[in-house]
């Protein structure tokens, strides 16, 4: 029997209250208790840009030690194993990663912006899905999805940046040219002067770029933890990538 906490995780219940109006992340969670308990929640990929699978995600408590040990010996228990307590975050992250693996394997265009089932045998698609879930040294980077997933789709030129409440705003010259018909854009920032470099996001954190929100034809925003900074002239580039989506991948949940 699978633990209740795992079942909630697998039913997408995560109760994230993260909100950021500047980035357009406003859904959050709503919990009401009247004659009955009702929960409105939103589920989405934690990294909406990349395909690399998540590992153990426990952040605190004895569960962290358990997960570290399992990580070290390379063992993961079945979900009905009553001797181990894995964090629900790990379970939910793993399910999300499997979803990504299946989307890239099944849809054409490596799973990006497609609704069409791709050609190819079931075995070939299974190989792609499992290649997605391999650990770094064992991935075949010459095969799908890793052979093209992190490809650049263009370079744009930031000319000034600012940061307020951990949200960076970037202006570009000329216009960035990114279509607002899609909300799956991301960038790898590469600014190289003084404080501007603090606006760069490591690809260790976001291998396929940090997700952005387009504000207008010459401005976009992204989450960037740091001190508030006024408008600053910068030099460098922003390497544009495509990921899974922004609000369009928000699965709205209604539990009652």
């Amino acid at each position: 029997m699978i633990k209740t906490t795992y079942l909630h995780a697998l039913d997408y219940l995560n109760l994230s209250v993260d909100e950021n109006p500047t980035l357009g992340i406003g859904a959050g969670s709503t919990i009401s208790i009247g004659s009955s308990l009702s929960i409105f929640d939103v589920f989405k990929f934690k990294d909406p840009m990349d395909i690399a699978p998540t590992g153990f995600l426990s952040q605190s408590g004895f569960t962290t030690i358990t997960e570290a040990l399992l990580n070290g010996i390379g063992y993961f228990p079945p979900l009905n194993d009553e001797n181990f307590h894995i964090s629900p975050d790990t379970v939910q992250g793993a399910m999300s990663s499997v979803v990504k693996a299946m989307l890239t394997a099944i849809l054409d265009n490596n799973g990006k912006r497609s609704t069409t089932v791709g050609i190819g045998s079931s075995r070939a698609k299974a190989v792609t899905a499992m290649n997605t879930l391999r650990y770094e040294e064992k991935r075949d980077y010459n095969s799908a999805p890793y052979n093209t997933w992190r490809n650049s789709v263009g370079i744009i030129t930031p000319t000034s940046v600012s940061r307020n409440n951990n949200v960076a705003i970037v202006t570009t010259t000329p216009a960035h040219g990114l279509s607002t018909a899609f909300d799956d854009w991301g960038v790898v920032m590469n600014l190289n002067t003084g404080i501007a470099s603090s606006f760069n996001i490591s690809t260790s954190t976001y291998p396929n770029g940090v997700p952005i929100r387009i504000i207008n034809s010459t401005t976009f925003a992204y989450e960037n933890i740091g001190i508030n900074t006024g408008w600053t002239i910068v030099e460098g580039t922003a390497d544009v990538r495509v990921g899974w989506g922004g609000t369009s991948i928000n699965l709205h949940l209604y539990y009652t």
Partner: protein
Amino acid sequence: MSFNWPDIPFTGAEVDAFVNEYKLIAEEIYYNYPYDSLELLTPYTNKEALKKYLEYGIIYAAFIVKQRAGNSGPGTDFDLNNSPYSPIDAMNTAEKRKNLMKNFGCIFTPGDMAASWGENKENDESLDPYDELSPEDEPWKGPIQDLMDSLTGNQNADDKCGGFYAKYENVNNNPPVDADGPLWSTILNLGEKVLGFLGGASGYLAVQLLRRYLQGTGGVFTENSDWRLASKSGVKSEIKSHINFWKNNTYVVQPLESGLTASETWRSYFGLLESDVVFQVRFANNFTLASCFGTATVVLSGDPVFGDFEVKRLIDDYDFFYGWEVIRSRIGIDFEGTPINDLSITSGSNRKSNGEKTGPCDQNATVCEAIGREGIHWAIRFPVAGSFGAGCYDKWEDHPDAENSGKPFSININFANI
């Protein structure tokens, strides 16, 4: 066991086609594709857990396709009362409701309830049985704690030899010792405790085989050797289940109908009957069996494809490419499963400059390099490589502390009377 697919709460041409293909691919992964689970990131190594991820994840995958398709209906309309996913499953039992309420805490504001949820759900002790290990348990101290800290931390792909190794840089020659003995001994005790929880007999056997290697016992491990906590019939049953599952896949269960195993010398040595059949079995899909045998030669009473069978014998050499390996001539009776001549034991291929166990030694090989530290399974390799230490030796007896450096042994288990 077949998949238990949930209903998809929305339809459409694109979604329907996608869902059908999703199920086909999931079944291909689960039933037919003999991927090596040891190459996967740890949360995906368990086949049954992976099956659950596939089952539960189909709704979200289908939802994304529905969103992209853009046709009307649930999945495109975000009026909260028209949620595209309105499962009653999350609250359909008293236990689940109790779980929710308990984890929310007692302050009924959304923010505080969500914060309590985040903290409490990781420690859901009252509803779910809990790991009996506690921080006070003896293994959690000294180098072990450091090792665990290292495992907990982010793995830096560019600094594979950092962290734990940097702190214990002398571990190459002098493994740190705690009050209970060498570090590997403590790791083994911890491993046995953990693997014991796994419930499988092969989990206990995996630790016992590793212990025998590290103790330098050598010789041949048979059904009459010290199995400690491992059940012989349990291991036999697990091997049979593995073969039964993969019997139609010749990559995993490969018939050996020619060559050495067909020779009279070989069959006579292992006492095969005329009707016995021999297979090379890959256990890579089964974590604990793979930890025992990797790939082994297995004698069966009949071909599993054509009916029931008995696991009669398992034959293998127990060695490590990051520790000591055995070179077999395969002449006479010098083949896997027979007694090992010490002169045939050489440093593992990861310590050889050309990556072959028969190649020239790399005298500068470090423990970390020998382990390779590929992925995240390196903790289980540490006792083997750490006991050997740094360097490379053409022969086992050349090692300055051979008796404590580990020693391969052969495996020849007669399951016929078990």
